[in-house]
């Protein structure tokens, strides 16, 4: 069991192994699965992730609600603008996965369905640019998974638990850890990358319009991917962050538990409860939800922990 980033680094260090191998050995020990089976399952996950991106980019039709679909293809087709090809590709990849998700396509919830676009967008955009092999991507997923396990144990990975900071924030932190590690960053740099990512997303609420995992989720996945790469780049350059990563994760958990239930995936606050948001919910036939939004009600306390994710 790894309960903190400090533990992870210390135990891997004393075993004389890397972060990826540590996570792999832990999984072998705790589930009884073989190393090969674990790696095959990760390869399968990567294949599903790639396919979800591809489908999202190619499919021009909209989701049943009409809120998403076709946007990632439009972005990719518009070509590079402000920061070059990779940047445009990464944004479109993130949105593409969420579009596939909204169409009831096959995705990997990494770590949740609502944040499923971040890790693939970052890894698949950078892999050809940085020359990472498929084998290295499997290792990167182990590092991402290790970071996700710690965040899930110490704080939350679900919007219903801690808002969007917990959902796309965790996905971005996982991606940042994976990239920093793959680029040969030290343990301290991996820690910094995660800390920088989470501090940049602290307090972000979860306010899905009409309760659907579409808007703002698709765009939040794109901005989370940017945050992940920015944080990895700063960490790899040796920039430091004075608050230890475990303490940053704890702050995220604390902010999440104090967050009003309207901002935790209940669709009763934030963008979801705006006049425009209510209109979209009404058009989607969610009359009961709209009534609650109009009342400004916080009913649905229970669903704060268990809403769509």
């Amino acid at each position, binding site marked *: 069991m790894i309960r903190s980033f400090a533990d992870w680094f210390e135990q891997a260090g004393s075993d004389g192994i890397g972060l990826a191998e540590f*996570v792999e050995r*832990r*999984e072998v020990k*705790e*589930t009884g699965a073989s190393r090969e089976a*674990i790696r095959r*399952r*990760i390869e399968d*996950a990567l294949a*599903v992730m790639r396919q979800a991106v591809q489908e999202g980019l190619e499919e021009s039709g909209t*989701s*049943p*609600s009409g809120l998403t679909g076709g946007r990632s293809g439009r972005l990719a087709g518009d070509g590079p603008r402000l920061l070059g090809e990779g940047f445009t590709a990464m944004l479109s990849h993130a949105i593409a996965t969420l579009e*596939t*998700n*909204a*169409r*009831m*396509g*096959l*995705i*990997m*919830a*990494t*770590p*949740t*369905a*609502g944040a*499923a676009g971040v890790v693939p967008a970052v890894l698949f955009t950078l892999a050809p640019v940085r020359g990472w092999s498929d084998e290295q991507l499997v290792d990167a*997923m*182990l590092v*991402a*998974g290790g970071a*996700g*396990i710690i965040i*899930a*144990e110490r704080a939350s*990975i*679900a919007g*219903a638990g801690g808002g969007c900071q917990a959902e796309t924030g965790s996905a971005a932190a*996982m991606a940042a850890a994976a990239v920093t590690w793959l680029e040969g960053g030290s343990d301290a740099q991996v820690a910094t990358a995660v800390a920088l990512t989470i501090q940049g997303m602290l307090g972000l609420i979860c306010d899905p319009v*009409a*309760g*659907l*995992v*579409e808007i703002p989720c698709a765009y939040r996945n794109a901005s989370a991917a940017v945050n992940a790469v920015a944080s990895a780049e700063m960490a790899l350059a040796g920039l430091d962050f004075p608050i230890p990563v475990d303490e940053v994760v704890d702050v995220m958990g604390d902010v999440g538990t104090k967050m009003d239930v309207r901002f935790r995936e209940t*669709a009763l606050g934030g963008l979801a409860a705006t006049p425009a948001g209510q209109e979209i919910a009404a058009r*989607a*036939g*969610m009359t*009961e*939800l709209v009534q609650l939004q109009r009342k400004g009600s916080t009913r*649905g306390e*229970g*669903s704060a*922990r*268990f*809403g*769509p*994710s």
Partner: protein
Amino acid sequence: MTTLFDILGPRMVGPSSSHTAGACRLGYVVQAILGGMPDRAVVGLHGSFAMTGEGHGTRTAITGGLLGHRPDDERLREAEAEAAEKGLEVEFRKVDLGSDAHPNSAVFEVARAGERIAITGCSIGGGRIRVQEIDGFAVDLSGSLPAIVVVADDVPGTVARITGLIAERGLNVATVRVDRTGRGERALMTIETDEDVPDDVLAELAGQSWVHWIRNVHQLNA
């Protein structure tokens, strides 16, 4: 404990792990307990399942689960058409199970070849589920481990005899839960194991005079 594939997964058809993947799992487990696809199902949706389920394909996912599809099966999208074709009739209703019920709860009343069962369960997040009630008996089934569900005479030694038969085959019991309608009447047992219970063990148990009904619920990975 959080495992690696809780974080890197589940592999699922979108859009929501609780309202789609979890909903499908509930339907799947219900048909497994029934012993196959129902002819008819009346499904009561409570709370958030009823309120935002429409947009998450909750009904489609439950129908797909009742057809025996798992959460990563892309046939889920066309579940309604498949149900019509295969003669599975599903009716959805909104229900209010009270404020103590989990917001993503569903009550299933299913029938197959004359047999009827009522099952209550909920989707607790990340695609995970709990089955809480079978025909009025309190249970606690997750679907993440293989399980057998047995209705047997509530007499001394029943649990030991069942777990004994399982242990003889070298299978490890993970959890045992017993609920009964009244002293000396019938008890419902759910026994989760680390590996699937082979059909011949099930047949042997089914042949015991004190066993009234038994079902094998296979593991639901994904």
